[in-house]
């Protein structure tokens, strides 16, 4: 197997979210949410705290409803493994403004770093490719992360990226847990009304 780099997850996410402008972000539950919050809370970020496996589908619905804005799903290998069918569903709709990033450390980090399927060789990018994603990539270096950020904003096509990160733990940075509040503030930022 190819040697995998161990990028720092916080540095990766900070790079992806810099100068984010009109970017909409959905985070899968667990560490990707802490990473996104650590990079700076934002009205256009939706943090999921339940429904493991729903990050991709939530991002898909958002991308279909907001085709003029780039949408980034930030999730982990564990969360993505629980919703792999959603890759097939997203591939059929193929919104050009949707990018899914799996921060892959080969472990279930929130529950004690048990090895996940990707540690044994399951390739999430390979699955996305087999589903028909027009662009998939596996990233091991920060320069490629910076290029991916530009691609996200360009809305070139539906894309999936595995970013190989290390297992180093960071202090938890917990985003707000009030789902109604975070929903309403995101909608307000898009000019949408509450009930």
């Amino acid at each position, binding site marked *: 197997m190819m040697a995998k780099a161990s990028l720092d997850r916080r540095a990766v996410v900070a790079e992806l979210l810099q100068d984010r402008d009109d970017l909409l972000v959905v985070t899968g539950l667990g560490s990707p949410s802490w990473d996104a919050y650590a990079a700076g809370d934002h009205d256009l970020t939706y943090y999921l705290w339940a*429904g493991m*496996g*729903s*990050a991709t589908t939530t991002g898909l619905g958002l991308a*279909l*409803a907001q085709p003029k804005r780039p949408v980034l799903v930030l999730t982990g290998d564990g969360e993505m493994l629980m919703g792999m069918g959603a890759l097939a569903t997203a591939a059929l709709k193929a919104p050009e403004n949707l990018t899914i990033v799996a921060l892959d450390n080969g472990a279930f980090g929130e529950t004690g770093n048990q090895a996940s399927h990707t540690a044994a060789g399951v390739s999430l990018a390979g699955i996305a490719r087999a589903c028909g994603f027009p662009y998939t990539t596996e990233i091991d270096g920060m320069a490629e992360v910076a290029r991916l950020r530009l691609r996200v904003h360009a809305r070139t096509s539906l894309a999936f990226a595995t970013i190989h990160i290390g297992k180093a733990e960071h202090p938890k940075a917990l985003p707000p847990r009030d789902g109604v509040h975070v*929903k309403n503030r995101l909608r307000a930022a*898009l000019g*949408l009304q509450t*009930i």
Partner: protein
Amino acid sequence: MAGPAWPDRIYACLEAARVRHVAYVPDAGHARLIELAHADPQMCPTVLTTEEEGIGLLLGAHLGGERGVLLLQSSGVGNCINTLALHASVRFPLLMLVTMRGEWAEFNPWQVPMGQATEKVLQAMGVLTWRADQAEDVEPLVAGAADMAFNGEAACAVLLGQRLIGRKQWVK
């Protein structure tokens, strides 16, 4: 052979409610409605690999300002249980139209456990439920459920009974 008229009335309700996203796992009872959604350029139908995907999709659509509906079979309600926590925690319009199996005149006993638990499971997760067993009940129940979902961000399920849908034919 012309099918029953109630699927067309559901479609009219969805149109009137400005529903754009039609997320579905195919079911014979919903076949006509799925066909109508695909034929309508104003609608965005999405076939799912499993029903709970539709809950995330409708949450995302709502975040982005669009309305949707989830079409599923009663067995698929079982697949949705954990993901229904999204509705309880976020509060967004969640309209579910459930075609029933495992009740009246069911041939396949393996369908019965989930069919009998469907309404209880929905209620246990905070979803409001109504049952339609007669064709004339379908339109008012769906229209009322859509009102409560879209005006009140409620989770609303209309169960379309097996008597309404008819016996599944097991011989071709």
